[in-house]
Each structure stands twice: as C-alpha cells, then as structure tokens.
C-alpha cells in the first residue's frame, strides 16, 4: 500500500482503517486495504524440470493462448474480426475468456489511460502464471499519437512485463495473427518469462506504477 505520508491524493474514507461496531455490540477493527486481499508479493517460478519436459510444457502453453481481451483502446475493434469466421483465430488455439482467472494472455489493445492502467494491473495480477502480455499498436510502444496526452502512459513495459509488441496504428487482424505466431515461437523457446520478470523486479514495477497512479487505493499485489 502506498505510504500515507507520501500520498498526494488522500485515501477515501471508506478505505481507511477504522473500528466498526457490530450488531451485537462487539467492536472490531477493519482495514479494507489489508483484510480482503493477500498482499504477499509474487514469487518466481523458474523452470525446474529437465529441458525436454519443459519444452513439452512450453509447447503445450504456446498452443493454448487464452486471451483476456482488455478493450483499453481502439485496438479492441481489431480483435473482433479475429473471433469471427473471416480470420478465425480459434483455429490457432487462441480464444477469448471473460475473466482474468481463465486467461493467460493479456492483450493491451491500444492507448492506456492512467485510470485504465490501474485496472489493467489488477487484471494482470489476477491471472495465473505462466502469463503473457502483448501490447498492440504504437500507443503502447512509445505513446503513438497520444505522446503529449496528459492522461495516457507512453511505455507499457515500464508498468507491466511485455512479451511482445505488435506495431501499427492499429495493427490489422493479419498482423495480430502474425504476432500470435511470433509469441508462440517465443514461448516455445522458453523466452516468455514475463511473470517471473515481474516477480523479480516487483519493487521497480510498483514504483513506476505508483509514480503515475496517484490515488493508489488497492493492495500492492492482488491475486
């Protein structure tokens, strides 16, 4: 949790630690920022089996990319044709899931405002490892046409561990399919260690995130 002293934006009252009186007169202390979440930082899970087993695992992972299609920006429009018969991403073992718990690939589809970044971070942390992040479009790479916006971040990899960027404004569905194939190659080669990278550099990621999200009103790690 962000330290109360260096907050520029005060915590709202309903999230402050307080004493509550129950209906039976029993008083207890409630700290909404601690009580409902496990705040333990993520752990690294390095490959532990022999190479051939890990390679098999990685092949299996690469063939089932389940996407959490977080429609952050205009890029979400380009994902819809992929679900439909014309481009049909399902034939590559790619499907869209409605919740972070069922997904292992977070697509950041376009510009991320600071407000959305907060939700994207929570969604990413709730996904189960091994998990991958793909940034779509120039907005996630260097800000794109929103390079001078007061409200959009310019580099996604400062805040989340990105495995692959797909360039374009916006990338066409064909480019996305190529990107998925490239991501599969990275996973099969054992290079998609974003979740471990996030765990290893957790402090740095949190520092970057808190630098832009001033009203930090969530636990440091939610899963």
């Amino acid at each position, binding site marked *: 949790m962000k330290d109360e002293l260096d907050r520029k934006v005060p915590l709202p009252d309903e999230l402050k630690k307080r004493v509550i009186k129950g209906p039976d007169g029993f008083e207890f202390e409630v700290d909404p920022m601690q009580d409902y979440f496990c705040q333990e930082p993520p752990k690294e899970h390095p490959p532990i089996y022999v190479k051939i087993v890990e390679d098999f695992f990685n092949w299996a992972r690469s063939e089932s990319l389940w996407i959490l299609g977080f429609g952050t920006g205009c890029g979400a429009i380009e994902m819809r044709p992929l679900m439909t018969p014309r481009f049909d991403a399902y034939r590559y073992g790619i499907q869209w899931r409605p919740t972070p718990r069922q997904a292992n690939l977070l697509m950041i589809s376009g510009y991320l405002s600071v407000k959305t970044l907060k939700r994207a971070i929570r969604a990413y942390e709730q996904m189960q490892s091994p998990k991958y992040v793909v940034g779509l479009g120039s907005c996630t790479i260097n*800000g794109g046409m929103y*390079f*001078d916006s007061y*409200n959009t971040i*310019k580099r996604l990899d400062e805040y989340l561990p990105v495995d692959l960027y797909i360039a374009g404004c916006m990338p066409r569905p064909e480019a996305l399919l190529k990107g998925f194939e490239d991501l599969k190659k990275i996973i099969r080669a054992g290079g998609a260690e974003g979740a471990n990278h996030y765990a290893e550099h957790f402090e740095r990621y949190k520092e970057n995130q808190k*630098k832009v*999200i001033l009203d930090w009103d969530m636990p440091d790690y939610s899963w």
Partner: protein
Amino acid sequence: MKELFNRLKTHFPLGEITEQRENLAFINVERAQLRALLLHLRDVEGYTHLVLLTAVDWLEEGELQLTYLLNNRVQALDVGLRVMLPREGTVMDSIHDIWPTAETYQRELREMFGIDFPGSPRVNDNFALEGWVETPPYRRDFDTLEFSERNFAHREGRETFDPRAHMKKKLYPDGGA
C-alpha cells in the same frame, strides 16, 4: 432570433447578440441575470432542453466563458447564453435544480476547468480523471506535453517530420526547380 432578443430585452439587461445562423444565436449576459434568464427561457419561451454547458478559456483576457446552449424543440431554435467569469478562483451558481443533466456538465467543468459549482451534487467527485493534483488539464496554461514528459516514461527513437518539408525533400531531392 432578433425578436427573442428584443422580447428578452424588455425584462433583462442583456449584452450583445451574435447571430450565428438564422436558428442559432448567442447572447452575452451577466452572471446575476443568468438564473432568471434560464428559468424565463425554459418556462415562457419554450427552450426546454439544455443541449450543453461548456467553457472556453480566454487566457489572454484572464476570463473563462461559460456557454449554456438551450434548444426549443417546437420551433427548432437554439440559443446560447454566454457568461464571462474571472479565471482565478472561478465559482459559478449551480443550475442542477433547473436541469438535472447539468450536474454531469458541472462535474466535468469542475475537474477539467477548475470551476466550482457549490451545491451541485457530487461535484467534487472524480469524473474522468482519478487523483488529479495538477492544474485542471483543459486550462490553457496547463502544458500537456511538458506534463507528459515529466510524468510518463519516454522511449527514445521517436522521430517527427514536418510533412511539408519532408515531402518536399522526398519529391524534390535537389531542392526543386
């Protein structure tokens, strides 16, 4: 629209009128007259719909201009009331009791222009931004490029070309005839 202006003029002190089209005009009014004028336009003249409430920052004049755009559905006429306010410590009277939709506009103006509307419901809540501590971003003295460079991580390698100079160089490498 001139007839409306002349009718209003018999009841209220009005500033000048700008006739944009034959069915759209803007009238400058004083802050003290605004509420009575809005009620009169709504209840007597049939301007029942608040189309929008927006602001313009006149940085050089040190003023903020609020525009209340009203629509008369029956006669298909629009009239805008313009109120000039000082830029520093801007406070305006809330009209959420006349049109409940004004509440949302006033929240937005509070956040984006820093105009306070005391008494308007939830006016101090977050609207589009969360945890904003700087100058309100729609004020013209807020430098969004400088803010973006100061706050958000930057990636090197971005190049920008002036389209005119770039195309000229590309099409006429020897400088043109």
